[in-house]
């Protein structure tokens, strides 16, 4: 099954790189280290037998383990000092000092716990330790720099998400303002004006009345339908009784092109009113993608209340099957990302068992 996880993609791509060491495949890393150390030892000390080479390699790895643990402790203690430095050269010096500080205890530990099988062990081990130590110092410095960059990027992503959310909120406020003006002020005003015109027409000759009637009819047509549609297109009416009613404007838009079926059994809309706009906007974008980009003919929208505080919105369509081009991030996915993130949810796009493209969002409210 093809499955594309969506959400804050940039953030998701950064976070794994900053995992702690214990999140990696430890057995594989240790085996590789033992193998690499054995090979190095056999080259450096041809006099050692195979058994002693492996045993010595184990000792060396154990030593490295202590080295890492000890180094981590020192680095933790020196973390504040390091992070407060702005110059990379100073940081590098602190790392070297931390590592040099650890060399002596480490060498002592290895010699105490893993007795030297040959006269040359200490020299060989020291060479390996030193090489690994240098490698570790360099990799730590590089990793630190990388982490700093990743942290900075992560902050930028957070800021971007926040800004995007603010822009959408601001846009929604403006839309709502204009929509309410159209609905409340303009429409009510036109009702009154048309009513007054109708009253005034009672005293004019029939021929003139007929012309006025046509004008009133046209004004009423504009008021009842065109202004209503404009108002709805800007901002949906959230004061509805059911989830179906909330989506009525969407049904109107796609009435002639797509058959939309809505199911929301057992969902009490009055409890969801606070997230009505989010539900509408998410559904609007998914429906738009399915109808316009996927050329879907049938869309099923299902709202499932999973518990008191969470919902699952599932939208399936029979349009063009999901492929990599569906992953192109555009305004639509950005809007979905923002609304889903506002509800601390997640969403994904997949092909379901029936081969239909399925959007599934888990939302909290």
């Amino acid at each position, binding site marked *: 099954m093809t499955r594309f996880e969506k959400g804050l993609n940039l953030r998701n791509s950064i976070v794994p790189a900053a995992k702690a060491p214990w999140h990696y495949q430890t057995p594989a890393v240790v085996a590789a280290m033992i193998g690499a150390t054995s090979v190095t030892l056999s080259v450096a000390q041809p006099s050692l037998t195979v058994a002693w080479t492996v045993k010595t390699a184990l000792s060396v790895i154990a030593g490295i383990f202590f080295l890492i643990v000890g180094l981590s402790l020192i680095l933790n203690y020196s973390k504040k000092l390091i992070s407060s430095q702005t110059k990379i050269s100073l940081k590098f010096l602190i790392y070297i000092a931390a590592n040099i500080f650890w060399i002596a205890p480490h060498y002592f530990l290895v010699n105490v716990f893993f007795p030297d099988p040959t006269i040359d062990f200490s020299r060989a081990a020291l060479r390996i330790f030193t090489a690994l130590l240098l490698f570790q110092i360099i990799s730590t410095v590089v990793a630190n720099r990388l982490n700093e960059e990743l942290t900075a990027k992560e902050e930028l992503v957070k800021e971007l998400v926040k800004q995007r959310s603010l822009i959408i909120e601001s846009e929604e406020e403006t839309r709502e303002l204009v929509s309410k003006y159209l*609905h409340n002020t303009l429409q009510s005003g036109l009702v009154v004006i048309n009513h007054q015109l109708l009253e005034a027409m009672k005293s004019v000759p029939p021929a003139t009345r007929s012309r006025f*009637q046509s004008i009133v009819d046209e*004004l009423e047509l504009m008021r009842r339908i065109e202004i209503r549609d404009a108002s709805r297109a800007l901002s949906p*009416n959230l004061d509805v009784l*059911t989830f179906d009613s909330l989506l*009525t404007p969407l049904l*109107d838009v796609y009435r002639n092109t797509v058959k939309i079926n809505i199911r929301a059994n057992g969902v009490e809309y*009055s409890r969801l009113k606070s997230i009505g706009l989010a539900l509408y906007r998410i559904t609007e974008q998914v429906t738009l993608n399915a109808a316009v980009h996927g050329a879907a003919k049938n869309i099923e929208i299902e709202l499932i209340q999973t518990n008191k505080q969470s919902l699952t919105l599932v939208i399936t369509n029979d349009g063009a099957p999901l492929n990599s081009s569906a992953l192109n991030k555009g305004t639509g996915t950005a809007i979905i990302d923002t609304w889903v993130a506002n509800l601390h949810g997640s969403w994904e796009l997949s092909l379901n068992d029936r081969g239909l493209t399925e959007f599934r969002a888990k939302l909290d409210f």
Partner: protein
Amino acid sequence: MKKTRVIYVEDDPTLLSIVSKLLRNQPELEIVSVGNSADALAKIDSQVFHAALLDISLGQSSISGIELAHQIRSRNSDIGIVFFSQYASSAKPTDQGDYYMGWSTIAKTAELDGKYISRVLVDSALGKSHNVKAEEASPSSAEYFRQLNPRQIKLMSLLCQGYDTGKTSQELGLAPITVRAELTKIYKILVPDPEPGTDLRTTAVLRYLRSNPDLGWFGDD
């Protein structure tokens, strides 16, 4: 005859005044009008009403008409609820259970038919529901316009400038009978479903102007 006591809630003061006056002329009704939800609930708590006539969008300082209806019903489960709004269909229940008995919807129109509103209010107070029909789809003005041929467009732009049939025929070099025949075709396109008494020419001109105002007043510039 016992009057039906109605509380009317509408945030538009002009409409509140007009509709209240209209309903006060209905002998079977007794009307109390208020401009917001808080005043409505205060009245409901202190007086007895048989029906509530509610706008849905009651402005920023009020809860919505639908929420108000639920609160009113929680205080008086027998009261008739009538929504009088442009969004009336959004308050139309899909569930036909007991709770929604006497729960009605009326679309706001300029006709403001007092007798009809009164009948719906009285019926709702007795537990009977009236509901608006499904909302109309928006007719596309641009679609009308695309159906006109170039000669009809030229003819319409002259009509929009106030030309009568005679002047139009002279301007276009056509016989008056031909102009009238074209006009008949145009009316069928622009006004496909005229109401009785509709002035076809006025309606056609208005629709033409809405679909393409540039070709109306300024078409020949």
